[in-house]
């Protein structure tokens, strides 16, 4: 330790460098966010449209834009500017950007990122994505509003459709009612009676025909009797005519006889009077017979007329028969017609039934259609009642910063102290010891047969003691200058101090081990870097554990630096000390001291 404390430049650097590092990092990480307002982003707007304007306006509000849109071949130009480091990033909006979006084709925006700027490029990329999202939201809002208008139109058309469906259903109901009436009418149409009537008529016609045949027979019989009567009358007529002729002759004879007598003579007068009487008698008889003859003639005439009448009757009967037969045929036709009517009725009823069913379906479907249309309208109403913003951005994230608006450095500080002390302790112990080793002092000490474990412990504790003031200085600066924790919070200060001392023990032990296997101070320095840098990157300080492969993060968690960082964070940031870190650091210190002792024995 005397040797070390007399290396004044080293001593000054040992104390000055960590403080300087802390102050520089405090300045570097003193901002509250990683905004891109100082980054210069090139723009090549080949579309120059309303949509591209929305996008450009979105990014223009938060960063510096260099517009190269008027430059010919500006796409290649901005890419070259980024490649040559003059721009942090550049964005190219292609021609047809707005039209493509309007036509429903996703548009590719190209962002040229200078990803060699590893800290700013992710922020710029995230910023660009946010700008794209905002523009997308705006375009989406507009698009949805247009859809809402169209849906409102469709809703009106659906309303008209509902009315038409209702009209159609009412018409269907009316048709159904009409059909029902028709069916009722058809059902009420008792064609059986008609058939019965037709049967009765047919029977009547048969009866009439029988009657006519009977009447015809009777007429024929009467005609025959009339013929007989006529014959008789004809004979009687002839007889009477003969009588009349006789009587005429007799009258003539009488007359002649009278004539032959002078009736003026009264002798003959009685004769004459008898002749006159006889003649009168004969004339009277003649007249009577003439009358009778006339009567016979009349009778015969009547018989002839009757015959004619009978003939007429018969003719009528024939006509009647023919009429009956015609009626029978007609009845038969009527029966066929009635049968056809029955069939048609059945068919009509069946058709009506089917139509009824169809109409029922139509009515039922019309209700369903109405329900569907109503549902559709409700859905349209439900959809259009939503704000487009709520669809384009259905989730709005609200972050509550539980640690307030503290600077990045405030969060970094509990991790920086272990990191600085890790490197200082590694460099100090490894390079100092390797120097002793190369001067032959280590070999000389080994020759003295001093216990290697004792020697390792002494070395580790010596270097740790040398560095404790350094740790105290850093703790004071952290507390008093940066307000990491109240210095008068004894418990916190002690835990912080204890953590740093254990970290120093662990890393000076590692440094001692490095020195044992190093050939020169340069080797020890590089080996310390080889140990320190991976531990730094695996500590979650610069790169979060969540992004590391599982096995790397497991190694990272197990490292002494990480344990110190976690313990410091648990105390300074979360005010919830984790004691496990102490145990792990003690184990590391012991393990590396033992390894150092073994190695000293083997390597000396």
């Amino acid at each position: 330790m005397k040797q070390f404390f007399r290396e004044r430049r080293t001593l000054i650097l040992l104390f000055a460098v960590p403080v300087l590092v802390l102050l520089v990092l405090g300045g570097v990480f003193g901002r509250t966010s990683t905004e891109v307002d100082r980054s210069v982003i090139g723009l090549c707007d080949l579309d120059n449209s309303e949509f591209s304007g929305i996008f450009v306006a979105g990014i223009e509000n938060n960063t510096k834009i260099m517009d190269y849109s008027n430059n010919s071949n500006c796409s290649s130009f901005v890419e070259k500017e980024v490649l040559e480091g003059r721009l942090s990033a550049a964005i190219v909006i292609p021609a047809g950007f707005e039209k493509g979006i309007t036509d429903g084709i996703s548009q590719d925006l190209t962002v040229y990122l200078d990803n060699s700027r590893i800290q700013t490029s992710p922020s710029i990329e995230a910023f660009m994505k946010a700008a794209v999202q905002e523009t997308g939201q705006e375009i989406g809002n507009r698009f949805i509003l247009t859809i809402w208008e169209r849906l409102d139109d469709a809703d009106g058309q659906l309303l008209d459709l509902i009315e038409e469906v209702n009209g159609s259903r009412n018409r269907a109901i009316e048709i159904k009612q009409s059909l029902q009436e028709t069916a009722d009418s058809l059902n009420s149409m008792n064609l059986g009676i008609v058939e019965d009537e037709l049967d009765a008529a047919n029977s009547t016609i048969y009866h009439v025909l029988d009657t006519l045949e009977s009447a015809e027979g009777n007429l024929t019989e009467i005609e025959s009797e009339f013929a007989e009567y006529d014959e008789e009358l004809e004979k009687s007529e002839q007889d009477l005519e003969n009588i009349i002729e006789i009587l005429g002759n007799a009258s003539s004879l009488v007359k002649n006889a009278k004539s032959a007598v002078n009736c003026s003579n009264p002798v003959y007068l009685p004769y004459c009077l008898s002749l006159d009487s006889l003649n009168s008698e004969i004339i009277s008889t003649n007249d009577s017979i003439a009358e009778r003859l006339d009567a016979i003639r009349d009778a015969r005439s009547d018989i002839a007329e009757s015959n004619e009448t009978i003939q007429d009757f018969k003719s009528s009967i024939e006509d009647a028969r023919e009429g009956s037969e015609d009626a029978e045929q007609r009845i038969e036709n009527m029966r066929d017609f009635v049968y056809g009517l029955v069939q048609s009725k059945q068919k009509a009823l069946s058709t009506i039934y089917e139509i009824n069913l169809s109409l029922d379906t139509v009515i039922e479907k019309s209700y369903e259609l109405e329900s569907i249309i109503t549902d559709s309208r409700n859905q349209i109403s439900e959809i259009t009642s939503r704000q487009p913003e709520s669809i384009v951005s259905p989730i709005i994230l609200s972050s509550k910063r539980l640690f307030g608006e503290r600077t990045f450095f405030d969060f970094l500080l509990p991790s920086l102290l272990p990191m600085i002390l890790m490197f200082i302790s590694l460099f100090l112990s490894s390079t100092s010891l390797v120097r002793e080793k190369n001067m032959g002092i280590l070999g000389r000490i080994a020759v003295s047969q001093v216990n290697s474990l004792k020697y390792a412990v002494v070395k580790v504790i010596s270097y740790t003691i040398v560095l404790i003031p350094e740790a105290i200085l850093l703790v004071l600066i952290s507390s008093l200058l940066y307000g990491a924790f109240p210095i008068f919070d004894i418990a916190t200060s002690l835990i912080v101090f204890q953590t740093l001392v254990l970290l120093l023990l662990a890393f000076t032990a590692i440094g001692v081990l490095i020195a044992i296997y190093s050939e020169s101070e340069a080797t020890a320095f590089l080996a310390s870097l080889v140990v320190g840098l991976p531990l730094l990157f695996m500590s979650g300080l610069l790169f979060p554990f969540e992004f590391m492969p599982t096995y790397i993060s497991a190694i990272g968690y197990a490292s002494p630096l990480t344990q110190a960082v976690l313990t410091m964070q648990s105390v300074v940031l979360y005010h919830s000390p984790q004691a496990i870190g102490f145990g792990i650091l003690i184990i590391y210190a012991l393990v590396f001291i033992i390894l150092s002792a073994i190695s000293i024995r083997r390597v000396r």
Partner: protein
Amino acid sequence: MGRVIEANNVVKTYPGKVTLFNFSLDVEDGEVLGLLGPNGAGKSTFIRILTGLEKADAGEIKLFGKRTSKEGRKKIGVAPQENSIYPLLTCMENLLYFGSLYGVTGKKAREKADSLLKELGLSDKKNVPAGYLSGGMKRRVNLACALMHEPRIIILDEPTTGLDPATRRNMWKMVTRLVRETKATLILTTHYMEEAEALCERIAFINAGQIVAEGNPKELKKMAGKEIAKIKSIPGVYANLEPQLRKIAGIDVTVTEHGVVIESDNVSQKISAITKAFGKYKEEIIEFSVSQPSIEDVFLKLTGSQLKGVVKVEPKKRS
């Protein structure tokens, strides 16, 4: 008088290299022994094994008649070739620190340190940081640190390397006086033949991990008891010349990396034939010296021959 060190058939190998092979050496109590050999001959390896910094692969080393132990090794004081001292500690602090490693502390340590500093002529520098001293002074502090615990065996590893001749001779005197006063056994490794001849009662030549010759300086000189001609020529291609030289009667020829060494009872009589042979093979002689044999000649002969051929020199057995 007894043997303080007995090394029997010690073997030490490193990957691809045999450093010590059946190495045997006995050292008597109070003896001053010089270990001579070219770089890589095995001197330092033997000392590292002796002091416990390395382990032998085979063989046995006894210290004070017993198998090596921590207690035995604590009786060894080593002054390494480098000045293995803390440059920012004063001479006194260095001595006290290294004394403390052997349990020499407190007043006794301070008295011993004062005594050593006085003997080594550093009393006025005891509070000066060692780094500020001259090379010779540093070397003396380095030596003093090895003597703080009054070791029975002192090992000086090339103690005067890098020192100017005057300082070197001054150092020799101090070492001689110290050895005489402490009656400790001294083992000295050196490249300087003059140093070995001046300080050592016995010299052991080591080459390729083995002792190739040992004895007191006089005995060793007798091994190379002829006149020696050292000839350097250019271009220095001796492959064809060497057989031609060997044809000259009465001379022994050894080709070394520095030239040709010719031994003869009377070199001057052979000069004509030798130069003629050099001329025949177009070797232009740029240096020609004739000397009486010295320890260095023996060393050159043994190590040089060993490099180019096989020279068997039977070690002289100590009675």
